[in-house]
């Protein structure tokens, strides 16, 4: 019995498993940074959509309409690739000699010197930006709607007190907007968390990839513990992890709601 426990503790703390545990940092990083960027893009998009200047309004509407319609998996694959090639193209205009371009047989990049090697860190940043862009489009809609929900009387009163347009925007409009936006933003956050399971598509050795590798059946004692297809056991751990994150997020959003609602009387706040 004790031997069994010692064996399993040893198995679950071998280097392979420790790498798996460590890979949770990628998922958490991508969720937090993706979430922060989504709010930034959402605020920007909503401000553009609210703008009195028609081209800005069009850009804001175009962004929230188009990006929301594109499946996140596609965007996740498309954006980092497009960004990488754009950077390589710009670098190529600077570093590629005509001889190097002539010597290049692969279709891309234009010359070998312009090749940009993306490691886990670079992909993680690009993944977070992709998440931010996709879910920023949803956040744009949520925030835009929330800004329209702030009673016009509040803004008129602020102007009557002599506040400048900028003061009205930041101290009254956006300050009160959160109460209406938070329920929608909490939904967007849940979607971001779910989308972090796509990280392995960008060659990031994330929790899903390691669950796959650890759960893959092994037939040779020389390789490690011989076992059948155990992937479902590892997926179960991911399942529990995501439920835990969901539960924590709901509690955190509850606390943020209470804080954002301080001193505001409204039906949304109840």
């Amino acid at each position, binding site marked *: 019995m004790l031997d069994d426990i010692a064996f399993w503790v040893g198995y679950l703390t*071998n*280097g*392979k*498993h*420790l*790498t798996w545990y460590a890979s949770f940092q990628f998922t958490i990083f991508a969720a937090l940074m993706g979430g922060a960027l989504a709010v930034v893009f959402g605020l920007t998009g909503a401000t553009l959509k609210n703008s009195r200047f028609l081209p800005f309004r069009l850009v804001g509407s175009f962004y929230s309409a188009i990006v929301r319609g594109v499946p996140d998996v596609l965007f996740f694959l498309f954006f980092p690739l497009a960004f990488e090639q754009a950077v390589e193209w710009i*670098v190529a205009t600077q*570093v590629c000699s005509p001889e190097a371009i002539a*010597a*290049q*047989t*692969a*279709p*891309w*990049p234009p010359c*070998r*010197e*312009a*090749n*940009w*090697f*993306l*490691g886990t*860190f*670079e992909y993680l940043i690009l993944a977070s930006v992709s998440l931010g862009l996709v879910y920023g489009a949803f956040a744009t809609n949520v925030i835009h709607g929330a800004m329209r929900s702030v009673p016009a009387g509040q803004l008129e009163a602020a102007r009557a007190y002599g506040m400048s347009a900028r003061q009205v925007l930041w101290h009254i409009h956006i300050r009160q907007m959160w109460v209406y936006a938070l329920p929608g933003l909490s939904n967007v956050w849940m979607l971001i968390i779910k989308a972090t399971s796509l990280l392995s598509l960008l*060659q990031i*050795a994330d929790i899903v990839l390691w669950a796959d*590798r650890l759960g*893959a*059946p*092994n*037939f*040779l*004692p*020389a*390789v*490690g513990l*011989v076992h*059948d*297809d155990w992937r479902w056991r590892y997926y179960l751990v991911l399942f529990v992890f995501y439920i835990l994150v969901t539960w924590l997020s709901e509690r955190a959003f509850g606390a943020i709601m209470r804080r954002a609602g301080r001193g505001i009387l409204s039906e949304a706040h109840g």
Partner: protein
Amino acid sequence: MKKTMLAAAAVLALATPAFAQESVRIATEGAYAPWNFLNDAGEPAGFEIDLGNAICETAGLTCEWILNDWDSIIPNLLAGNYDLIMAGMSITEERLATIDFTQDYFPPDPSKFVAAPGSDLDFSALSGARIGVQSGTIQAAYAEENLSADNTIVSFATADQNMADLMAGNIDTILADGSYLEQVVTASNGAIEFFGEDILVGGGVGAGLRKDDAELKAKIDDALTALKADGTVDRLIAQWFDGQGPYYAE
């Protein structure tokens, strides 16, 4: 402004080394024991890892191992994510159309069928069978061309998933590299057996690289010639493949 400059400098500092070529990156699948797999420490290990490290030492190169799934291992080589593939890849005409290979470091490896003991399939003229292959392999191409008319070909992303589905009875037989199957059959204690005749497809196994990388190819080829001459390749083959060989002794 100062902050912007600092940020720009930081981005440049991060990005610059990525354009400089300081080491040779070798891609492997890490799921094809004993060729290449992840050991308990989570690091790549196996015949090709030992051989690759020996090549790099002989050629005076600094090498770094990168894990990449089998099905995207050639596209990502072409995209420049790494410089060399060592993943039990047979040298074939089809692959030579897109990439180049070094000289072989493992002789042509016969493909074999395995199935549960007492299988009533006629392996000389298979029909009505569900045949498992790993996608993108020489066996997958062979099965698609020669066996798909009368049988169902089932493709798997990794060799081990293929094997797990055979054990679970989802497929009737597997066609795969003999070098991979040999140890699995031995370790299975009779749960699976070899059937039928060997099938010879593909040349030897070599390291894949981009066609424009003649310089690297020359270095690796020279190192392999030296390692074959001093017996290192044969020693590693014998060590990882239950005493097979020697294949390259003079």
